[in-house]
């Protein structure tokens, strides 16, 4: 199945893009997606441990199961204000 993955700030610059479509095995969790991305995109590795993940605009735990079409966002430490 496919999910949309969005990247911001340092992770966006590392990826060279703000958005990809990613094919993942049905029933994958957030954690499994992140492991898969780190394997596939070495540039992302320095950020992998810092990134929090949002699924459909909500912060999501690593064990959250993903569904077809979900919008997953990779959020480096925020710095608003």
């Amino acid at each position, binding site marked *: 199945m496919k999910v949309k993955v*969005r990247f911001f700030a340092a992770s966006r610059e590392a990826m060279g893009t703000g958005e990809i479509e990613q094919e993942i095995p049905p029933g994958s969790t957030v954690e499994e997606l992140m492991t898969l991305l780190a394997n596939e995109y070495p540039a992302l590795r320095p950020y992998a441990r810092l990134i929090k993940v*949002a699924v459909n605009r909500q912060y999501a735990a690593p064990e959250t199961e993903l569904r077809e079409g979900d919008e997953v966002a990779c959020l480096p430490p925020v710095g608003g204000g």
Partner: protein
Amino acid sequence: MKLFEITTEDISVDEVVARLANPAIGAVITFVGVVRGNSEGREVRYLEYEAYPEMAEETLRQIGDEVRTRWKTIREVAIVHRVGRLEVGEISVVIALSAAHRPQVFDAARYAIDRLKEIVPIWKKEVWKGGEEWKSER
């Protein structure tokens, strides 16, 4: 008028305060973030703010809900955050809280800005002469 907004335009404190207009309010506290000209001894040329705008507006709204749940005297909350390139001296964020009377609004305002820096998906890149860096609180 939106109470929680990510914008690329100049922010006016008066305009944000006006979003709270209501004959029952007697006090408004605002926190105004301003781009500083230096950071850790470096002269900042400008800042670049980036947001995940849809989620950022939702988390701003969540902060407003949290504040009004914790402090019953707070009537309304508005938070407007600017993104894009900001020059030194420009306003990056305005948080405004209204109440009938003044007790507690200060605690509530402090809570709002602390939470904003903690959970809202907005990022800040400092650009100085000869370098740049993404900054976060932690």
